[in-house]
């Protein structure tokens, strides 16, 4: 896209993930998984509250969740993947932002403004996290989806 077209397009191109670099992808995924986890946290607090109503209330809650069928375990698998990615990527972000690790040294902004934060260490960290999380997510899927006959 030319400069003129980019200005006219405003913020819309920023919603197109195809133009993202790996750091931007991890930023978007971190936020998306964070929102999923907050939604689950709120539901989980209310789910756990049913324990205070005794075994009958807990059984009713479990039965209601089981009535969702495969959606229950698929939902838990998505939550597990979100927790794994958010946690692992969060550790990278803490190393970046709290301790200044894995990032290049700051330089004066020079066109075309290549970010020094996207050096070799950062790329290795992002891809290592992606591979480890994918492996653990597959393992979690084998555990959670086993009863569905999926794996």
């Amino acid at each position, binding site marked *: 896209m030319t400069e003129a077209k980019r200005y006219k397009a405003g913020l819309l191109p920023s919603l197109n993930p195809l133009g993202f670099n790996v750091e931007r992808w991890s930023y978007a995924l971190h936020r998306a998984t964070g929102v999923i986890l907050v939604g689950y*946290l*709120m539901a989980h607090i*209310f789910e756990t509250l049913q*324990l205070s109503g005794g075994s009958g209330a807990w059984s009713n809650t479990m039965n209601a969740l089981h009535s969702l069928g495969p959606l229950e375990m698929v939902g838990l698998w998505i939550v597990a993947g979100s927790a794994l990615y958010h*946690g692992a990527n969060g550790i990278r972000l803490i190393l970046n*932002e*709290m301790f200044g690790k894995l990032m290049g040294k700051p330089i004066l902004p020079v066109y075309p403004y290549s970010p020094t934060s996207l050096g070799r260490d950062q790329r290795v960290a992002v891809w290592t996290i992606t591979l480890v999380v994918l492996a653990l997510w597959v393992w979690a899927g084998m*555990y959670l989806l086993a009863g569905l006959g999926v794996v």
Partner: protein
Amino acid sequence: MRGTMSDHPNSLMKESWSMLATYVTAIILVFVLTFHLLLESPLSGKSLDATLTFGAATNNLTYYQVVFGLLLLTAVIHGLNGIRAIAVEWLHPKRFRLVLNLIIVILMAFFLAVGTYTLVVVG
């Protein structure tokens, strides 16, 4: 006289405190959430169904009440502060921020109260 950034009503220093809370709760969450997940995983030696029984769930809350209390506190602060951080990027005017902060604080208090009630009654 020139003011510093911390003198400004929308001071970045306030956001720094909020981000510091996010980082500190994140570090604690890595440990307590890993512990919570391990209790429910095959590594605990139980099947998934066995970890979801009334007895197993109440036992976990009773034996590890302090850990689950810490998990509740850090997860609620970290999660809702994260939602606030996302919303702040969209809601720039100061009046929206005040309303947003108020909503987030009320939600934090509400979920902490519900979670604490569960821990006290069950534990």
